[in-house]
């Protein structure tokens, strides 16, 4: 009976695996999901609240934890708009115009995905660190980038660089330039064309890119760890704060702060689902 239903609804030829295969695949997928995603999440929450709600609250309202939260939000507030503007400009140029070296630029945009975040952080240390290329000049002018907030922002911008552009380039390429040309032929200016035609067509893809970019900006560990210097209350972001607390065997506080990050991730996921649902029904 079950098989019959499957067969009758599935019109694709040659895609009717036997029931046993269907079930095996489902079990494997669900098992994987549980083991690697759901269980860790449960453990984080369980450990965070293991010493009671009041200790959890005390841990996340502690001075250094709040400083880390503030820094994390500050970094995201800078990095996301910067990459939004860049991503929009880059994908507009790459998707709507033909020019030489286009695929090279697309490859370059992917670079932050390809290199390890630790290497990305090191690049900035080598560039702006005291013994780096620009280090002496920066020291002379009393500008500190490495082991300070600017370095953290730069490293985060680098790591989250591709998210918006990667989301928009295929979308804009697929939509082509017909509607923009039509808008221009009707007398619209370049800005009017962008605001009234291009932007509404990509708005959900753009939102999706921003959400992913934001999630990564708040959660980035490797690159930020290299440039931060781990100064408590000053250059520790939330992920770094978790590490510091964990290394001090302060497990309850570490998991409490981690639960905050997990909460941010859940909010992101909900937003992402809403955007996906909306874009499908628009």
């Amino acid at each position: 009976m079950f098989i019959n239903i499957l067969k009758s609804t599935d019109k694709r030829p040659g895609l009717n695996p036997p029931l046993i295969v269907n079930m095996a695949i489902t079990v494997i997928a669900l098992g994987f999901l549980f083991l690697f995603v759901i269980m860790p999440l449960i453990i984080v929450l369980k450990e965070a609240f293991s010493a009671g709600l009041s200790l959890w609250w005390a841990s996340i309202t502690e001075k250094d934890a709040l400083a880390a939260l503030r820094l994390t939000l500050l970094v995201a507030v800078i990095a996301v708009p910067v990459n939004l503007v860049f991503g929009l400009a880059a994908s507009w140029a790459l998707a709507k115009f033909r020019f030489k070296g286009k695929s090279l630029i697309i490859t370059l945009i992917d670079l932050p995905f390809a290199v390890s975040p630790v290497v990305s952080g090191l690049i900035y240390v080598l560039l702006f660190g005291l013994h780096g290329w620009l280090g002496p000049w920066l020291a002379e002018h009393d500008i500190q980038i490495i082991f300070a907030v600017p370095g953290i922002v730069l490293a985060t911008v680098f790591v989250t660089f591709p998210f918006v552009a990667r989301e928009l380039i295929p979308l804009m390429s697929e939509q082509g330039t017909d509607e923009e040309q039509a808008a221009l032929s009707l007398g619209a200016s370049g800005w009017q064309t962008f605001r009234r035609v291009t932007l509404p067509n990509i708005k959900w893809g753009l939102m999706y890119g921003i959400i992913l970019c934001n999630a990564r900006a708040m959660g980035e560990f490797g690159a930020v760890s290299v440039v931060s210097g781990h100064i408590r209350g000053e250059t520790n972001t939330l992920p770094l704060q978790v590490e510091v607390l964990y290394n001090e065997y302060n497990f309850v506080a570490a998991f409490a702060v981690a639960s905050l990050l997990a909460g941010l991730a859940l909010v992101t996921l909900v937003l992402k689902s809403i955007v996906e649902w909306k874009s499908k029904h628009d």
Partner: protein
Amino acid sequence: MSIILRNISKTFGDFHALKDINIEFQSGELTALLGPSGSGKTTLLRIVAGLEEADRNVNADILFDNRTVTSSPVNRRQVGFVFQHYALFRHMTVFENIAFGLRVKPRDQRPSKQDIKDKVNELLRLVQMETMAGRYPSQLSGGQRQRIALARALAIEPKVLLLDEPFGALDAQVRAELRRWLRKLHDTLHVTSIFVTHDQEEALEVADRIVVMNRGSIEQIGTPNEVFHRPATEFVMQFLGDVNVFHGRIESDSAIFNETVPLTENRENAARLLVRPHDLTIQSTPGDGPALPAKVYRVLTAGPIVKVELIDRHNRLIQVHLSHDSYNQTMVKLHEEVYLVPRESRVYANNDAWTGAYVI
């Protein structure tokens, strides 16, 4: 508004899309740019619109009503452009699509809300789509989208209407209907219009004037009657309607087509005899003038005309179109030996018309 193009060329890399085009479009006329794909017709239309730029050349010029517009961008030219795939704004309703051109006008020229509403409704009536104002483009059929695209282009009161393969993506029946409708619309609006098509029937039926293009050059400009009955070149003759081609050669001062061995095309003195299927008469005797012996191979009587297919002595297929009346009079029988007499024909040698005598 009249449009004059002078010395317009366009190259994409090594490819010469347009080669030194000179042409004038009369005010109020409906002109068809007709040619096979790759002939440069769409490029020419896009250059008129300003969507594409012609190669820079001191003599190149585009004039609208004798004023040069060569350097003005598309959004300043005030042209109505209808795209091949409509290019309607997918996130806007039909109403908003048509209103777009009015809403993006500079503040001091922008009509009031009520005026925009009235104008859009008037255009919706014109294209017979009053009830569709609230729909989105994805909810419309191809023919309906085409009409909305046209209404949207007309909203800015363009001085010239440019249509790129306006019926290309529609099925045959809608196509025929829209064709007639476009002609009627043009007769009421009298706006200078140019449309691109690869369909000779469409061009012959709709246009006041036809510009036949081939490989980036203009082959002939004329009324539908002129290009059909007096084709200037072999290409025009072959492109407009069916044609039978016989290969032969020029010898001293006459064109010879009665060789027993068929000739290949690539010879210096090669000549081609072109006869339209409806210009051949079937006779049982050779008669006085030139006549071509052939054998009846197939007769198709279904349809408005009778199509007779014959095989000549070189085993080549020849098509003859007869009216049912004349078919009934001649009564050709299958496999019968008959003689074909061209009432009208053209001979071309090295792409020039040959006016001398010929033998078949």
